[in-house]
């Protein structure tokens, strides 16, 4: 395909540089000296406040990942902090004689406290996630509300945890011979951990797993059909968020040296969500801004409101609540989102040349073994789909061979979309079989088929509008990589990541979108978005391409370019099935046409014979006299 054919677009917005490390690297560089000096010049009271902010920001960071990136929400952060803080406090204060023999070494050990705290948090989060994350988005918040309340009452009633009075007398933290007994010493520990967590989160988001998590928000059906396990991605985000809270709980226990149920109540869980929202859930730094802003504002309001209202109580909650409502109505991005907008620079204006300067070429990914030309790749055998009394597909049978393009056409309501859904395993036949490379696939999930080499596009374009074109396409290669969360957070995935992005780049250049690699996918014209979907499908290295109305919304030159691309793919041995309305596009391109009307086959054959077939003419033109 000629580059430049698809290049005419009026407005092109630069992609939100979420995974771009540079702005964050700048923030880090600016922050480090400030943080290094702060405890030396600030009074102890302020340092203690900064310690609390650091701990809150760590828990809020989890919520930014969960709410802002993954589009889920939880009120359980405070409860997770509580689990870990109590585990830490218990092990720090228990005498070795009270623990069962093999565990006696844990008494008084901060690292054992950390480990047990994190393991407990992980276990509880796994159970909660397992029972809520498969369900619609309302069950996680409701589940965490219920569990947060239960836990609060449980803490208050368990004798060995001190009941409502809590556990006190936690000794100062001492790690590897360094004593963290003063607020100033803890400050460095807390903020070092927080900054490491921020960097780990940024790394995670800029990775294969990160793309899967970012696709959760509005792209689940699409990413599932690219082989992404949405449940797993949700679980990952939820567990990472819980583990940040667990880490915060450990720090909390050693900062306060005292734990009681009150700070881990549901109200505290709500406060963390407010911090995340006020700071801005779309940006990792929003966690720090939110935690600091809410903590300072709370102090100020707690001084001010009792004077105004003449009595004491939790009245700052009214102000925060109203602020959240206002924010949701007017500025859903929070403070950090607003800042990011103000500083948004148009760094990636397409120039017409291929925009891959910062993408080093990498070793190509291994390819799957393609079927020999002429081999049957897809076969439908007597496929019938009923919806109650309505028969949407009746006894549909056809084959698609490697190196062949089959078009399924028919008037509106002919049952093409139903058929397409069954072929792509989104829906399943009532009776009949669908075979892919000789194996039955009806009943399998779309996700399983992505791995087998079946790749698709969508009738209504499904992409992630705020992610870059390159990242959108890289989702297609999800199953060709294997690195997980830990590797991503520690940047051990760079070699694989480079290969995945290189593959995405190559496919984008191939379809003619090479100059748009770094722009926001949502700013492309509709026709280009369709082409992007084809590049994404190609990224999965398929042997069968299912295209749902690929030419809809394309201009003449774009259609020509698309046809050229499809012809080239065919010559490489790809099997292609397309559902299309555009007769000119279909007739000049495909090898065979399968015509449907009212859910049944009315004709099948090469384009020339279809064009003169009386049944087809009747279906399309209402009869020939």
């Amino acid at each position, binding site marked *: 395909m000629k580059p430049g054919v698809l290049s005419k677009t009026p407005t092109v917005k630069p992609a939100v540089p979420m995974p771009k490390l540079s702005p964050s690297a700048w923030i880090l560089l600016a922050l480090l000296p400030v943080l290094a000096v702060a405890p030396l010049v600030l009074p102890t009271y302020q340092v203690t406040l900064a310690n609390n902010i650091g701990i809150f920001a760590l828990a809020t960071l989890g919520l930014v990942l969960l*709410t802002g990136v993954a*589009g*889920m*929400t939880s*009120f359980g952060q405070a409860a997770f902090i509580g689990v870990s803080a109590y585990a830490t406090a218990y092990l720090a204060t228990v005498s070795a004689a009270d623990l069962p023999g093999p565990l006696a070494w844990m008494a008084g050990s901060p690292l054992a406290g950390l480990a047990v705290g994190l393991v407990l948090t992980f276990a509880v989060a796994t*159970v909660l996630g*397992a*029972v*809520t994350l*498969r*369900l*619609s*988005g*309302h*069950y996680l*918040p*409701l*589940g965490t*509300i*219920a*569990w947060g*309340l*239960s836990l609060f*009452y*449980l803490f*208050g*009633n368990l004798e060995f945890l001190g009941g409502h009075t809590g556990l006190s007398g936690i000794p100062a933290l001492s790690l590897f011979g360094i004593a963290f007994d003063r607020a100033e010493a803890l400050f460095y520990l807390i903020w070092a951990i927080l900054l490491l967590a921020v960097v780990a989160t940024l790394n995670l988001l800029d990775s294969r797993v990160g793309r899967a998590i970012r696709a959760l928000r*509005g*792209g*689940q*059906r699409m990413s*599932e059909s690219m082989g992404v396990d*949405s*449940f797993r991605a949700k679980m990952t985000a939820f567990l990472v968020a819980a583990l940040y809270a667990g880490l915060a709980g450990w720090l909390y226990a050693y900062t306060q040296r005292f734990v009681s149920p009150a700070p881990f109540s549901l109200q505290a869980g*709500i406060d963390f*969500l*407010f911090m995340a*929202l006020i700071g801005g859930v779309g940006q990792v730094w929003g966690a720090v801004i939110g935690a600091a802003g809410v903590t300072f504002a709370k102090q100020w309001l707690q001084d001010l409101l009792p004077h105004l*209202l003449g009595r004491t*109580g*939790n*009245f700052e*909650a*009214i102000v*925060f*609540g*109203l602020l*959240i*409502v206002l924010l*949701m*109505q007017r500025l*859903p991005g929070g403070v950090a989102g607003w800042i990011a907008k103000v500083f948004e620079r148009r760094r990636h204006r397409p120039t017409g040349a291929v925009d891959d300067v910062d993408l080093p070429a990498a070793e190509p990914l291994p390819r799957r073994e393609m079927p020999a030309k002429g081999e049957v790749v897809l076969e439908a055998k007597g496929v019938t789909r009923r919806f109650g009394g309505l028969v949407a597909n009746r006894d549909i049978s056809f084959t698609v061979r490697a190196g062949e393009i089959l078009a399924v056409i028919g008037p509106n309501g002919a049952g093409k979309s139903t058929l397409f859904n069954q072929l792509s395993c989104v829906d399943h036949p009532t009776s009949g079989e669908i075979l892919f490379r000789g194996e039955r696939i009806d009943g399998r*999930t779309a996700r399983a088929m992505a791995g087998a080499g079946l790749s698709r596009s969508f009738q209504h374009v499904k992409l992630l509008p705020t992610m870059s074109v390159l990242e959108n396409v890289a989702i297609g290669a999800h199953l060709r990589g294997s690195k997980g969360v830990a590797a991503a957070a520690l940047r051990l995935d760079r070699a694989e990541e480079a290969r995945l992005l290189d593959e995405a780049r190559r496919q984008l250049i191939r379809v003619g979108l090479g100059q748009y690699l770094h722009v926001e996918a949502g700013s492309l014209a509709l026709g280009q978005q369709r082409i992007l979907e084809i590049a994404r499908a190609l990224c999965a290295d398929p042997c069968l391409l299912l295209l749902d109305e690929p030419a809809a919304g394309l201009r003449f030159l774009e259609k020509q370019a698309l046809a050229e691309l499809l012809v080239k793919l065919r010559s490489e041995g790809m099997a292609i099935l397309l559902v299309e309305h555009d007769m000119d596009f279909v007739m000049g391109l495909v090898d065979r046409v399968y015509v449907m009307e009212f859910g049944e086959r009315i004709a099948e054959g090469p384009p020339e014979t279809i064009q003169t077939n009386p049944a087809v003419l009747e279906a399309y033109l209402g009869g020939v006299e």
Partner: protein
Amino acid sequence: MNLQIVMLLGQDGITNGAIYALLALSILLVFTVTRILLIPQGEFVAFAALTMAAMQGGTPVRLGWLLLALAAAALVMDSHAAWRRDGRIAVRRGPALGVAYAAGLTALTTLVPLAEAGVALQALVTMALIVPLGLALYRVFYQPIAAAHPLVLLIVSIAVHVVLVGVGLLMFGPEGARTEPFSDGGLRLGMVMLNSQTIWVVAVSLALILGLYLFFERSLYGKALRAAAVNRLGAELVGISPELAGKASFALAALIGSLSGILIAPITTIYYDSGFIISLKGFVGAIIGGLASYPVAALGALLIGQAESFSTFWASSYKEVIVFTLILPVLVWRSLSHHGAEDEE
């Protein structure tokens, strides 16, 4: 545990369960029509109970001021919208009437002593305060973002709950209150003594459920609400305004909430923040019903009432832990019977 205790606990469970069932129904109603999880549902309950108690105790009734403030906010928002649309400030009749109504009711409740007015009149005044409160809450907080992502609606719900609890503390103070029972004595059925308040609760709940059933099955407005719940866009296309549907469902929720509060106030001491825990049990019922089925939700809520009542006997301090842990098996079952990933609008 003997039979008498079983009967006593069962009776308690039915009383509470009936209230939870009412709340579960109203939560479901609001959710299906507007996609909003009405976390502030509990505040209707607490505010109603405490307003009743304030009237009976002769202490100032301050709820009118909240209604007046919200009505004024609604008026301002409406005028602002008109100004942005037409370039001039216009005051429409509805919001203006709302302010007048709130002002009148505030004057009535602050100036006229209602301590001797009798339970029926007090209950009427309480509902006259709370039902429009529901309407105003929808107008001010939810209507501007009615089309937003469900996550945003949930966050606003939580925020509104937090605001209302704070305002509740301001209006009613930190002390709890209990009201006089509707009637004395009880009814002896064989060896069981039925508490008169239990009979009231069960009778009013049944009447309300029947009333709701008739409303949704027989009346045009009820059918319109059901249509909006099944398909919002479709309902809008045939002329059912989503604003009207939203307001109507909130008014109904406030009505159910205030009735629940009035019914429960003689049985339990209610504090300004008690509503949340009570309504959460309604939520557990609604979850048991899969946020979809009314009868299952009501049955689930009755079950919660029983579980709560019997766990009070066996492990009083773990009562809430047991009740809220009950949703785990329900969620497990729902997860196992669910498959596939969907995108939420």
